[in-house]
């Protein structure tokens, strides 16, 4: 625990620091949404966005109406839900494995989901029904998660080193599978495949978003409800059971719902790395490890991060679009390295 983080926490006693953080994050998210909708080739002020949103039929010009309602709003909703889901899944898995380095990407869930989705794109192609993609992505993610968790399980404990290594191996296998698929793919499928591996929110229209909405919203709500027992789980599995937590059920729920959420998100956006690692870590530095606040704040923080990185992806190389996975990994990679260096110093010094 760094000096800074300790000092930041010193002002609180036994009470939770709900105080300013959640309202601040919620207001920031709301304002960011209003601003971000206005960003793009057609620029709109927050006030214009507000009036279009408030009166769907009469506010603003016909063009503004179409831009906001047909293009930017579904995309914004996807950004908010994907960010929340990825950040919450990261926080959940970090608690589940009692390790701050767990992340849906690192334990193979994302790449497993992308491989399955990629298989559908290349092997089934355009004839695939709309529902097949998210379902396949979910199945792939869940399978990868189960295999990795099985490999890392020694008796009743989960070996963290094995878990991360198994995740690396799983990611390598999935990457190879995606490579093979791209070798087999025709030009059209290849472009879709590239979309998967780099991640983008650009595919989201209402038609794609609506089937995945219930999954994403449910995953967010269920994971938020796991906050209290997750705190107990950090003490150890037997200890959590002694405190009245149904540990096996909790583990199953966390694994299923984080995988379900990430699978649904990946099925729409492709791989968006490091959000699940980055956001809960930043939040913990401010609030400490209590999941009741970490989970809520991560949900908001993940959405916030995604809204702004998506705005960057739309504007940095306009009129083209920079895949959002590139931006999050460019931010997340260095952060991860900083984290490793910080932990190494703690072990050595």
């Amino acid at each position, binding site marked *: *625990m760094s000096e800074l*983080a*300790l000092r930041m*926490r*010193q002002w609180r*006693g*036994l*009470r*939770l620091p709900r105080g300013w953080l959640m309202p601040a994050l919620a207001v920031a998210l709301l304002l960011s949404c209003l601003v971000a909708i206005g960003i793009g080739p057609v620029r709109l002020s927050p006030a214009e966005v507000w009036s279009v949103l408030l009166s769907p039929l009469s506010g603003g010009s016909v063009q503004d109406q179409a831009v906001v309602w047909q293009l930017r709003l579904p995309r914004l909703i996807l950004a908010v839900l994907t960010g929340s889901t990825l950040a919450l899944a990261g926080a959940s898995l970090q608690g589940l494995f*009692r*390790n*701050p380095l767990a992340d849906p990407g690192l334990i193979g869930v994302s790449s497993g989901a992308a491989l399955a989705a990629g298989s559908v794109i290349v092997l089934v192609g355009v004839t695939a029904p709309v529902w097949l993609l998210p379902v396949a992505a979910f199945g792939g993610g869940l399978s990868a998660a189960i295999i990795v968790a099985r490999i890392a399980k020694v008796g009743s404990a989960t070996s963290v080193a094995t878990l991360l290594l198994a995740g690396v191996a799983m990611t390598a296998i999935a990457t190879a599978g995606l490579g093979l698929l791209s070798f087999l793919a025709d030009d059209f499928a290849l472009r879709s495949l590239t979309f998967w591996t780099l991640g983008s929110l650009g595919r989201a229209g209402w038609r794609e978003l609506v089937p995945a909405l219930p999954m994403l919203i449910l995953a967010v709500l269920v994971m938020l409800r796991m906050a*209290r027992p997750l*705190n*107990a789980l*950090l*003490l*150890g599995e*037997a*200890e959590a*059971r*002694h*405190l*009245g*937590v*149904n540990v096996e059920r909790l583990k199953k729920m966390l694994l299923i719902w984080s995988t379900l959420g990430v699978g649904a998100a990946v099925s729409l956006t492709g791989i968006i790395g490091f959000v699940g690692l980055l956001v809960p870590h930043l939040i*913990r530095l401010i609030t*400490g*490890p*209590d999941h009741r606040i970490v989970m809520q704040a991560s949900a908001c923080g993940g959405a916030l991060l995604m809204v702004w990185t998506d705005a960057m992806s739309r504007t940095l190389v306009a009129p083209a679009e920079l895949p959002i996975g590139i931006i999050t990994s460019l931010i997340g990679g260095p952060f991860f390295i900083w984290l490793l260096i910080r932990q190494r110093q703690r072990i050595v010094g």
Partner: protein
Amino acid sequence: MFVVEQAFIDRHGKRVLHVPDFVFNTGELVAVIGPNGAGKSTLLQTLSGDLVPVQGRTALNGRPLAEWNINELAQRRAVYTQSDYLTFPFTVGEVVMLGRMPHQHETTQHDVEVVRAALRVTDTTAFTERCYTELSGGERARVRLARALAQVWPNRRKQPHLQQYLLLDEPLAALDLHYQVHMLEMLKARVGPQLGVLIVMHDLGMAARYADRVALVNEGRLVADGPPDIVLTSERLSQHYRLPMQVLRHPELDYPLIAAGSASQNPPAA
């Protein structure tokens, strides 16, 4: 009241404990003693419900442990384990507050008061704001004890007649002598009509001095169970610890002192 009847416990398909008959009630401090690997912790895990006997019966208040709602069980008994997995930087106050989990949906004033009291009796109040992972082993042990105490702290107003139990697996192992005595006397003082305490321990002298009852476990079997003066004899201890043992009395304070002889005096039989 905990009742164990003709219970056989298996681990990985191997028989590890046989308990012919064992009762643990409020109002008593029971010490579980025995050599390494004898089955002391297994007995404790049988009482906590972590291990389910393949044969026989384990019950609390007449209801088999496996049939209890896990949260209602947690309101009635707290467990101190030696494992220490916490690596996330919780403060000591937050760790002890986790002990209140079976009783709360939202943190109440009562919970805060209980946590303060549990910190006070374990002499850990000074650490309240500190990060648990930065404490020494002995300090962490006292904080975990405070968490267990907070879990079964009586609520005289809401549940005036609730009987509660502490199951402690070697809580003294990491403590210095001052705290061993201090904690045992604190626990002894808390024992009453609504609290029973069961402690797995290695220090026979401490067991003799503070326990109302001593249960001796050896080679996977409960071999003796009774008042310290009856269970802790030179002959029995020599046999089960495979060392010449002598039970003396403190010249001034008149409590049993148990001294082990040298291993070379009487080489182990096996």
